[in-house]
């Protein structure tokens, strides 16, 4: 028991006790403890195992800079894997489990791996498991690797939420500098937000324990917070700024306690003051990874904040002038401290699981704890993320903020200003947007490079087991760039993302290559600064909120009629009606549609109106087909193309009058068609002479299709002459329904006589019940989308995007007249005459027939040609159904030179099975159009 709790020390509440378990053993802590501080207070030294060699690991740092303490934690039935022990607050009843260990961190059977470490250098996996095939080894290696275990249980209500906010000034870091900056800014009238990642503000003040402006730290911090709040400033505790993005967007993660997802704050700040402080830097020496070796600042933090004394017999190894003051603080707390100047010898830690001493300058010094500091590293992550430059400060051997990014300024320790008064002066100036005074720091550090001639192993990345030898090996193998080094050795890829190992690694590489650290450079700093759960980004972007369904106004009626609802192109639509077998229901719907009539809710059908004096010219330009010759009251089917000549959408155009058209685009393409139309309108036309108006959701559409359709419409009394002569196929009439306008289009997507009746939304239910009551006696059936898909396929009508793909041009579907004859320009016109467009090998739409009782072809199955040495795909099945009307399977396909193969047989290949199909016309029902024109 070398580390222990000191009564009266720290910010924790000594009067209350919290019980917790670690690796099956019972321990006690206090409110205010983290898992790491509570374990240390109980003298637990081995809290984890390293990733690769399973070496014992102890706590190294006291906050986000600790690379070792990773735990699976359960509480009240909630289990969260991979919690950072140094930043997770202790709660009563927690069950804490070390990760990547069996059975415990104290005794881990895989520790034997360490014996093989000479055979497991950097790049070992890349070199060894390549032959014959990595995939042979992968499962076993994956099983060996990894940290925490996911719980089988789903954590209920683990849901983040997201808050957007803006402010004049965001202050990142609530230490002395941050508090001063926030209060100065708030008092000057700026709206201020201060974020601090601990749940108590004050930063490093508690570490040094001394008075600030003649007050104890706690008292001074309270005063600053009062000043900030009374001036209207806001303070967010337990909140970490983890990313800076363009235009000063800063992402904050607010810790809401164990078992709850953190909350994401998205802050737009006019200016940002970085008072993020500095962290301790490890020293690279032999066996520096042993439990009991800690950072100096970490030990002071454990003492000042958590009342934990890291050890009794301490060797304090350091290369800077903070060593003596630090030692004195520990001595005051009762430790025996011996200060060693790390530049004066080659240290080596002695001991295995239990630290026994340190070898230094040819003597052996007994100790239970080694505190090591290689200087201080300013926390410049956010600065670099924002695009700020770094300067190398030779005096303190550290990168400090250089040329600033827009609207960002740094103050305090992050600038290398480690003296309190000076740091606060910087912060005050930064807050008020005044030039930041820079003074010489009293901090002094001696340059120190790792001793490459020692015999023992020296750790650079504690968690990932990257040693000095690994870096030497990588450099020898010419992974000379620091970015390559990182990926080859996994240096800095542990869960602390190099907060501890990065500088030590750079130092090592620089000394190996005989370069300076600034010449070696740093790896890229990327968000997130601390690990955050993916849930943080998801937040409310889930289910209906992420992808809201479009709902039909008739949804209650469909539900009442027993509809099975499904999503089609963003709309929730009836797939079929009835509760029995879907197959049978769909079949009956198809038969009723062919024999009597179908009633279909077609409301999602696009209804984009084009109005204005240039409307005709405009529609003629955006459509492949000639629209200028369309007479008012008439309808034409056509395509919209992309400029590459590819079919973008199909639909009918209705000309209501001289200057008014309706484009009925596909239900699922309304938004994209509308956007394309707006694009052409505003970029290329006179936007004052033509207007695009999407009225899709202003009108409901009910389709009545089938031999009885006319009779049903007669009963509705729409005020329109329905006789075939007066109202032929592909024409449009305006009538009335319930004293309101009704638009009636005689168009068909089934191949039977069909009318589409559109009425204002308010009349939808009325029309629906009127159609049903007039249709039911005539045998009409409610028909869902699935039956409609079969009806149209029987007729050879396509769905764009299903029966066409990214190469399909109109002439591939047999509609080649505009391509040959249309004289006026239209979108995609020139693209229809390229070498590709003129190729004889284009895939064309065909129908496929197989045996009457065969199983239907699989959609997506390839049509193949066996003439060469290997079978070649010459197309694929795009739609495939059993046709109730025809009593046999039908299919549509895109087939190379398809029209020339009519009557021939082609092999259809799917998952190793080959069948034969006969190529026929896509239209297999009423090819003469007698029913359509009835």
């Amino acid at each position: 028991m070398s580390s222990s709790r000191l009564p009266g020390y720290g910010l924790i509440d000594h009067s209350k006790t919290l019980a917790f378990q670690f690796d099956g053993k019972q321990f006690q802590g206090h409110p205010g403890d983290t898992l790491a501080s509570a374990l240390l207070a109980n003298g637990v030294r081995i809290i984890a195992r390293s990733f690769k060699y399973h070496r014992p690991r102890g706590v190294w740092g006291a906050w986000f800079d600790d690379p070792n303490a990773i735990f699976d934690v359960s509480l009240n039935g909630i289990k969260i894997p991979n919690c950072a022990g140094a930043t997770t607050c202790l709660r009563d009843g927690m069950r804490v489990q070390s990760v990547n260990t069996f059975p415990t961190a104290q005794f881990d059977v895989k520790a034997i791996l360490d014996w093989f470490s000479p055979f497991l250098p950097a790049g070992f996996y890349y070199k060894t498991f390549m032959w014959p095939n990595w995939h042979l080894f992968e499962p076993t290696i994956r099983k060996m690797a990894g940290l925490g275990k996911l719980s089988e249980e789903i954590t209920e209500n683990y849901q983040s939420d997201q808050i957007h906010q803006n402010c004049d000034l965001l202050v990142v870091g609530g230490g002395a500098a941050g508090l001063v900056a926030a209060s100065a800014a708030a008092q000057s009238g700026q709206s201020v937000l201060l974020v601090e990642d601990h749940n108590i503000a004050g930063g490093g003040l508690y570490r040094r324990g001394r008075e600030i402006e003649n007050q104890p730290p706690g008292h001074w911090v309270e005063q600053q917070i009062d000043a900030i709040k009374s001036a209207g400033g806001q303070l967010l505790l337990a909140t970490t700024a983890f990313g800076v993005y363009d235009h000063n967007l800063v992402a904050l993660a607010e810790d809401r306690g164990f078992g709850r997802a953190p909350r994401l704050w998205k802050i737009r700040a006019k200016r940002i003051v970085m008072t993020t402080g500095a962290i301790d830097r490890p020293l690279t020496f032999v066996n520096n990874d042993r439990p009991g070796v800690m950072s100096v600042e970490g030990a002071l933090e454990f003492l000042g904040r958590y009342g934990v004394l890291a050890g009794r017999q301490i060797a304090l190894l350091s290369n800077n002038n903070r060593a003596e003051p630090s030692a004195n603080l520990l001595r005051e707390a009762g430790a025996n401290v011996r200060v060693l100047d790390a530049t004066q010898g080659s240290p080596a830690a002695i001991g295995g699981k239990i630290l026994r001493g340190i070898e230094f300058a040819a003597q052996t010094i007994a100790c239970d704890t080694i505190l090591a500091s290689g200087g201080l590293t300013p926390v410049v992550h956010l600065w670099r993320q924002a695009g700020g430059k770094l300067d190398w400060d030779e005096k303190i051997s550290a990168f400090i903020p250089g040329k600033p990014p827009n609207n960002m300024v740094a103050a305090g320790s992050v600038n290398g200003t480690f003296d309190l008064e000076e740091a606060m002066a910087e912060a005050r100036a930064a807050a008020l947007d005044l030039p930041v005074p820079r003074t010489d720091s009293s901090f002094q550090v001696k340059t120190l490079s790792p001793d490459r001639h020692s015999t023992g192993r020296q750790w650079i990345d504690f968690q990932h087991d990257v040693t000095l030898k690994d870096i030497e090996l990588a450099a020898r193998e010419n992974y000379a760039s620091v970015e390559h080094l990182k990926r080859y050795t996994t240096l800095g890829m542990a869960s602390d993302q190099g907060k501890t190992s990065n500088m030590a690694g750079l130092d090592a590489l620089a000394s190996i290559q005989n370069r300076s650290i600034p010449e070696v450079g740093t790896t890229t700093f990327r968000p997130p600064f601390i690990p955050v759960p993916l849930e943080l980004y998801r937040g409310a972007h889930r289910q209906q909120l992420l992808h809201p369904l479009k709902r039909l106004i008739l949804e209650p009626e469909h539900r009442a009629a027993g509809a099975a609802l499904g999503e089609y192109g963003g709309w929730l639509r009836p797939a079929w009606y009835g509760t029995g077998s879907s197959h049978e229901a769909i079949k009956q719907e198809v038969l009723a549609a062919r024999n009597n009539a179908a009633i279909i809710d077609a409301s999602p059908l696009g209804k984009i109106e084009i109005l204005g004096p240039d409307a005709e010219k405009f529609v003629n330009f955006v459509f492949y087909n000639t629209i200028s010759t369309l007479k008012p009251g008439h309808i034409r089917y056509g395509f919209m193309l992309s400029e590459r000549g590819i079919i973008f959408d199909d639909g009918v155009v209705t000309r209501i009058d001289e200057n008014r058209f309706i484009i009925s685009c596909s239900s699922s393409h309304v938004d994209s068609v509308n956007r394309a139309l707006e694009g052409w309108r505003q970029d290329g036309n006179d936007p004052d002479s033509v207007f695009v108006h999407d009225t899709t959701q202003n009108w409901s559409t009910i389709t009545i299709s089938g031999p009885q359709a006319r009779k049903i419409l007669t009963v509705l009394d729409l005020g329109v002459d329905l006789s075939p002569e007066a109202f032929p196929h592909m024409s449009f009439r305006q009538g009335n329904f319930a004293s309101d306008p009704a638009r009636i289009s005689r168009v068909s997507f089934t191949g039977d006589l069909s009318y589409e009746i559109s009425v204002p939304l308010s009349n939808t239910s009325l029309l629906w019940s009127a159609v049903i009551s007039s249709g039911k006696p005539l045998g009409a059936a409610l028909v869902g989308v699935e039956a409609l898909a079969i009806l149209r396929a029987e007729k050879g009508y396509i769905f764009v995007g299903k029966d066409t793909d990214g190469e399909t041009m109109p002439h591939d579907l047999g509609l080649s007249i505009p391509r040959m004859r249309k004289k006026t320009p239209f979108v995609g016109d020139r693209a229809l005459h390229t070498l590709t467009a003129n190729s004889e090998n284009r895939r064309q739409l065909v129908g496929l027939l197989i045996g009457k009782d065969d199983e239907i072809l699989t959609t997506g199955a390839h049509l193949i040609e066996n003439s060469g040495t290997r079978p070649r795909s010459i197309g694929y099945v795009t739609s495939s159904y059993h046709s109730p009307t025809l009593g046999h399977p039908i299919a549509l396909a895109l087939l190379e030179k398809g029209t020339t193969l009519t009557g021939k047989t082609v092999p259809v290949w799917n998952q190793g099975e080959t069948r034969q199909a006969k190529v026929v016309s896509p239209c297999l029902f009423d090819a003469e159009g007698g029913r359509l024109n009835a």
Partner: protein
Amino acid sequence: MQQFPCPFCGLRDEREFHFAGEAGKMRPDTSGEVTQTDWSRYLNSYKNREGKASEVWVHLPCQEYFIMHRDTLSMKVLGTEQLRRQEEI
């Protein structure tokens, strides 16, 4: 995450915008002959300038297409202007 100024709505989050092409690109007049090269250049060749670039963007909620001048190196938005011809006074 950047913010772009829509000439119609003002500063909005970049997710509300779609890129719609390079500004100043003229569609070849297809009422006459257009060579394969000219058409291909129209479809496929972009200046893709380093530094100051002018592009057409659309603000999806209001459907306004507009020209945005950006610095493609610094990501700085230099300004936006309406696409429609300004009234001649």
